[in-house]
């Protein structure tokens, strides 16, 4: 498994035994010794909160950081639809192996088998854990847990709490976290943003942070650093992510030597509310679970579409034979539950063909009229009431009476920092969990699997894999007095000063918007060589202008939201280029990465397993030199590589 400097550390043995045996064979830290180790956890989402709470329960001393005013507000809170687990409560043929297989296939064979199998194995424990914490999952009349279906699966294995599954899971993890804060095991630092990583003698030993209320920049030392900082979807400016989601923590780690893996694997979610104007600050997701009962269609003819766009015709008056239920037509066995990448591209195709229905031409219908006829409005209301309410709030339209309008939007990032089987990056002591790492979803994530991964990493994986590293080091060997801390802290303070001193003419948002539009155009749902090369040549110019012409008001020693945004956008401006370089280097189509040059005659993604069945891990080499690509060859021992078909 070794490839140059990339050792995935996947344990030997049969796939289904690897994790158990790894746990058994790994070194432990004795309970009375754990207090000697201090662990930094950056992030309080599902991954961070569950990791911080669990490590504290085990006796480690934990410091946890988040940029929101409370750990309970991490972006995981916004997840709607559900969480997968191979419980097979529905007796419909699910199993650990099937969840593993669906995830590998859903990821278009670009994920690491051993990690994915482990994820499927621990998925069942997650549900037990959450129920014990009091997470009020949906139940059947008999009192047992209910399930729904999600895309890319033919079984019902998704657990949910109305349309607020992420909220309830995060509140569960948050309750575990506050329990440990009370017990004194976790020290919590809200409204504190990590601005750099400190590496001493090749090991991650701490972070530099800014207190977002006082502006104070300070250092924290520890024996290991866990980044649980979520995804970088906001590089596109418009996405379904919370406004504060950023790449700063992972990108700073990248600049300190951590490899960034598969940055071009981004997920465009098929069911979001279409863009309505250029003032728009974010896009809103309509949960994939809606595709259980909603049917996606566009008019068959451009003329009908035009009349709908112009408001001359209501969608409810379009006769059945005039409607193209394109997912059901193209993918009869999965229908409306085809995976996200495929559904998104199909919507784009319909709109590119002139059959889009939103005023901008970028929109298709998600229609509940059949389900309402079959089940009654009250059933639909009970299942998705809050989503319909949200839709009406935003668009002013009633989704029970007229079909919803949807369009794909940036939603999730499969790429992230490279980690080995132990979730450790190539920098010893730096661990990466949740959406921030690259490990489990390959080139496309299946719905309801991110929540599963975040909690798997935090509750069940890291407690077993962190000691593997800790057993090799002496606790407390480095403190913030180490000169490396002083020098990183100085760099951070200096950068802040620079941002504040430019006092140019353009606002942070205007740069962010321009960058977002560029990458959405060139590195969004469809990509090609010429476009990517153009983006790679234009981004540096935009970056240069940013550092000459940005206006950040006020001072550093105060609550300064423009300054916070400026720091994040500065990192996006560098990261965007890396993302495009990765997309350019991957001369194949797979999952969410669709290179128009590489497609089958009927427009499906065309993989090139001979040359690209690898993880692309990028190493930073300096401001003026291009990053170096390292490849981790993916070995498929349990599944055979196939053309992914949902037909």
């Amino acid at each position, binding site marked *: 498994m070794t490839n140059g400097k990339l050792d995935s550390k996947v344990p030997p043995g049969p796939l289904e035994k690897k994790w158990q045996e790894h746990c058994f064979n790994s070194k432990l830290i004795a309970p009375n010794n754990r207090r000697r180790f201090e662990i930094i956890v950056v992030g309080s989402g599902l991954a961070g909160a569950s990791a911080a709470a669990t490590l504290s329960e085990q006796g480690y001393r934990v410091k946890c950081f988040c940029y929101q005013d409370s750990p309970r507000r991490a972006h995981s809170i916004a997840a709607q639809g559900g969480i997968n687990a191979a419980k097979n409560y529905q007796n419909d043929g699910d199993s650990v192996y099937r969840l593993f297989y669906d995830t590998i296939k859903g990821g278009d064979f670009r994920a690491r088998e051993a990690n994915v199998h482990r994820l499927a194995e621990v998925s069942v424990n997650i549900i*037990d854990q959450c129920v014990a914490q*009091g997470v009020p999952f949906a139940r059947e009349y008999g*009192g047992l847990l209910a399930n729904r279906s999600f895309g890319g699966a033919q079984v019902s294995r998704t657990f949910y709490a109305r349309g607020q599954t992420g909220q309830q899971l995060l509140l569960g993890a948050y309750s575990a976290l506050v329990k440990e804060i009370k017990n004194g095991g976790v020290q919590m630092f809200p409204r504190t943003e990590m601005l750099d990583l400190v590496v001493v003698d090749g090991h991650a030993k701490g972070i530099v942070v800014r207190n977002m209320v006082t502006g104070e920049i300070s250092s924290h030392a520890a024996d290991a650093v866990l980044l649980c900082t979520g995804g970088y979807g906001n590089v596109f400016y418009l996405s379904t992510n919370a406004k504060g989601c950023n790449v700063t923590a992972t990108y700073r780690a990248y600049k300190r030597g951590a490899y960034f893996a598969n940055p071009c694997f981004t997920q465009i979610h098929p069911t979001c509310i279409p863009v309505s104007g250029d003032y728009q600050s974010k896009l809103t997701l309509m949960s994939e679970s809606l595709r259980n009962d909603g049917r996606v269609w566009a008019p068959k003819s451009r003329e009908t579409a035009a009349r709908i766009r112009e408001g001359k015709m209501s969608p409810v008056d379009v006769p059945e034979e005039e409607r193209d239920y394109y997912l059901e037509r193209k993918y009869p066995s999965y229908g409306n539950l085809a995976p996200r990448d495929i559904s998104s591209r199909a919507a784009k195709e319909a709109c590119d063909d002139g059959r889009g229905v939103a005023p901008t031409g970028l929109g298709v219908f998600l229609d509940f009229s059949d389900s309402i006829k079959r089940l009654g409005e009250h059933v639909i209301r009970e299942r998705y009431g809050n989503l319909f309410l949200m839709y009406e709030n935003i668009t002013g339209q009633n989704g029970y009476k007229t079909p919803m309008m949807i369009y794909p939007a940036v939603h999730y990032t499969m790429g992230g920092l490279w980690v080995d089987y132990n979730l450790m990056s190539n920098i010893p002591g730096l661990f990466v969990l949740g959406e921030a790492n690259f490990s489990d979803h390959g080139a496309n994530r299946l719905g309801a699997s991110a929540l599963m991964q975040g909690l798997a990493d935090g509750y069940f994986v890291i407690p077993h894999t962190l000691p593997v590293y800790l057993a090799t080091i002496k606790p407390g060997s480095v403190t913030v007095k180490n000169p490396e801390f002083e020098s990183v802290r100085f760099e951070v303070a200096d950068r802040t000063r620079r941002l504040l001193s430019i006092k140019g003419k353009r606002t942070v948002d205007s740069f962010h918007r321009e960058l977002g539009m560029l990458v959405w155009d060139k590195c969004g749902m469809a990509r090609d060589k010429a476009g990517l090369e153009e983006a790679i040549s234009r981004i540096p110019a935009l970056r240069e202008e940013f550092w000459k012409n940005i206006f950040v008001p006020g001072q550093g020693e105060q609550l300064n939201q*423009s300054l916070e945004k400026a720091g994040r956008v500065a990192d996006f401006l560098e990261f965007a280029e890396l993302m495009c370089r990765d997309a350019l280097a991957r001369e194949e189509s797979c999952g969410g990465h669709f290179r128009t040059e590489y497609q089958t005659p009927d427009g499906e993604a065309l993989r090139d397993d001979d040359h690209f069945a690898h993880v692309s891990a990028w190493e930073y080499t300096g401001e003026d030199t291009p990053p170096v690509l390292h490849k981790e060859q993916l070995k498929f021992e349990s599944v055979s590589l196939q053309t992914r078909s949902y037909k």
Partner: protein
Amino acid sequence: MNLKLKVWRQENSSATGRFEQYDAPGIPDDASFLEMLDIVNEKILEKGGDPIAFDHDCREGICGMCSLVINGTPHGPGRATTTCQVYMRHFRDGDTITIEPFRAKPFPILRDLVVDRSAFDRIQQSGGFINVRSGSAPEANAIPIPKNKADLAMDAAACIGCGACVAACPNASAMLFVGAKVSHFALLPQGQPERRKRVLSMVAKMDEEGFGNCTNHYECEAVCPAEIKVDVISRLNREYLAASTLSLIEPLPNAAAEGVA
């Protein structure tokens, strides 16, 4: 539409604040309230000024971060919505809109419209959890929970912790928030072992943080974006009464009584 804004500006927690006027011309109907503020802030920035600071994150009505009092009402017009889910189509051309932070003693202002709600976290720390270690949980379907019980628990658990209830209450009471958390756990079998201790600790902490008492104004329910009903306050009172009465006969063991006034 063209609007005028009266916005509360305050340098930091120790400074005195004041209202400032801003013009907000050309606001699209379909913009959200926070997008309207974004537009105004861009204009302020273009003139070299200091933009209005306000909290927000998800802009989807779920994280509980946004927290404005719009024309005197926490989260503004419309039932069951957060500030970020208020859309400009609810306003009329020419309107003057007053925008203030959530005001309550336990929520000090940090800057402009940004307040410190960490008191809520501290209340939750005092007992808003079930003591269960990762990995020690029994099989999830081992205890069936009647659907109606689970649904009621979910109704209470839906609280987003925004603090609008406190901002709306003349007494700055946090009883809707605490009642929601206490109800969520009290309704579930998993919550039973720590039921008494939980309610006593959380109420004690709530008082210590300086939140007032409920005197049945029901303003909290009216502004709650998660539609938490005042029933949870009745339940909180019942739980508290039962727990304190029982404690007279059967005191909680010392460790468990920790933090209970």
